[in-house]
């Protein structure tokens, strides 16, 4: 997919510097200067070495953090630390609320949307069905597996019908097989909802399988050093991992990342 038109999300010359409390110790430049544009309906993944600022980047777009300099915009509106409507976030950690049932977890944010009771029920039921959780509607998260809890969190974001879904390594804690299957589910949801997906991941194969475009980040301070277009058809699933092109994409990502990853961990054993 070749992006065209006005970007849904744009980051221009964005930098993020962390200053320790009380200004004791050195400041750390986590990001930038970084430029990035996301377009309506695309699936964009970001890969990068550990500590390169991937999560910081996601938090800037989510409005959970403010850039030290530069502009971050969603649909033409500056984000600047505000949580804008139309943006949903799924975190790496299990964020399902243990004191609520699956149904109540999923409907948690709907109260803010001022919907009728019927509309609320419809949205929750449809999210339960979409994520295969109907049989567990009245269970508590402690009674579910890690993968199912993550599905609850995705469903909780989906019922809000966001136009932009931000995913911070959502399958990081899952085993490889479950991750592939969850990837299939995510692709399904992406097609059904038509939302833009911005996925942060450390797994090159996951990015290569899921995304239309993949941004490769440098070691800290993180910048986008390469953008790889995968060219996959929209109607794809995890079976594309057996295609030759999948290997080519993963190899290209690793070529871009290898030196950065070594820099990130201070590794000097082999030549970059």
């Amino acid at each position: 997919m070749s992006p065209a038109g006005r970007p849904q999300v744009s980051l221009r010359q964005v930098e993020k510097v962390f200053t320790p409390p009380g200004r004791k110790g050195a400041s750390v430049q986590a990001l930038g200067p970084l430029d990035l544009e996301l377009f309506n309906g695309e699936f964009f993944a970001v890969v990068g070495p550990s500590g390169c600022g991937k999560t910081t980047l996601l938090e800037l777009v989510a409005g959970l953090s403010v850039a030290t300099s530069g502009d971050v915009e969603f649909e033409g509106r500056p984000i600047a630390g505000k949580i804008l409507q139309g943006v949903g976030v799924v975190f790496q950690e299990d964020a399902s609320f243990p004191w609520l049932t699956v149904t109540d977890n999923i409907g948690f944010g709907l109260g803010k949307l001022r919907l009728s009771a019927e509309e609320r029920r419809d949205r929750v039921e449809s999210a339960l069905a979409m994520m295969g959780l109907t049989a567990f509607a009245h269970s508590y998260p402690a009674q579910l597996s890690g993968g199912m809890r993550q599905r609850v969190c995705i469903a909780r974001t989906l019922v809000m019908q966001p136009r932009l879904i931000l995913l911070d390594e959502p399958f990081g804690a899952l085993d490889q097989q479950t991750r592939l299957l969850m990837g299939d589910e995510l692709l399904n949801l992406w097609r059904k909802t038509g939302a833009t997906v911005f996925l942060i991941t450390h797994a090159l194969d996951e990015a290569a399988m899921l995304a239309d475009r993949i941004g490769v980040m440098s070691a800290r301070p993180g910048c986008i050093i390469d953008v790889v277009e995968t060219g996959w058809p929209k109607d794809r699933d995890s079976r594309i991992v057996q295609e030759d092109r999948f290997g080519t994409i993963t190899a290209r990502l690793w070529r871009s990342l290898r030196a950065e990853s070594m820099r990130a961990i201070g590794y000097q054993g082999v030549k970059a």
Partner: protein
Amino acid sequence: MKTSSLDRLRNGLVLLLVLTGLWQVLYWCVGDVALRSPLETFGYTAYLLGSARFWPNLVETAQAFGLALVISVVMGLAIGFTLGLSRIANAVFEPVLVSSYAIPKITLYPILLLMFGLGMSAKVAFGVIHGVIPIALFTTDAVRHIRPVFLKTGRTMGLSPLEMAWRILLPAAMPEIFAGLRVGFSLTLIGTLLGEMFASQRGIGYLLMNAIGLHNVDLIMSLTFMLTLFAGAASVILLAINRRMQQRT
């Protein structure tokens, strides 16, 4: 009834039988001077429950304890949430709170008596100073250890600070807060009874103190038995609720 519930019931009954047996043995060893047998105590308790002088005193204690518990819970939660959410308040006041927990509260009795005089306010105050600190300390700890991802989720859902407190902070911290409430419940009861023993002319604590003065062993045993039964039953119920909450996390 589930097997585990039946097991718990059987264990409870066995424990009661063992304790009653030990009580009887102790009575045989010590004799009438300081103790009464379980059977005599049950008999006197039945007589006491039928007597006119018992109920007004019970109502007095229940009122004092109820009021002290409500004040302890409200104050404890307010202090706990403030210290849990504010790093500065925590750094300044938590050491003070921890130190006050270690002070034997009985040493404050003369000051409280001067401040409140004999009667309801003094015993409520005595109950509160016993109960509020554990509730505040447990709440502080609970709020400080809420997983940051819950708060981030709340923010991405656009919750206001009040909604965040009511819908996320309170339920997320509740299992630990409840453990504090359990301790606070027992200590507030002890404080209220101590207050009645030293600073009141009505209530179960007063009756107990009076019985000690008159060496009325029947009354001492009966009141102690009822208080133990009440505190034990309340503790079992609160512990069961607490366990249920912990299972969900």
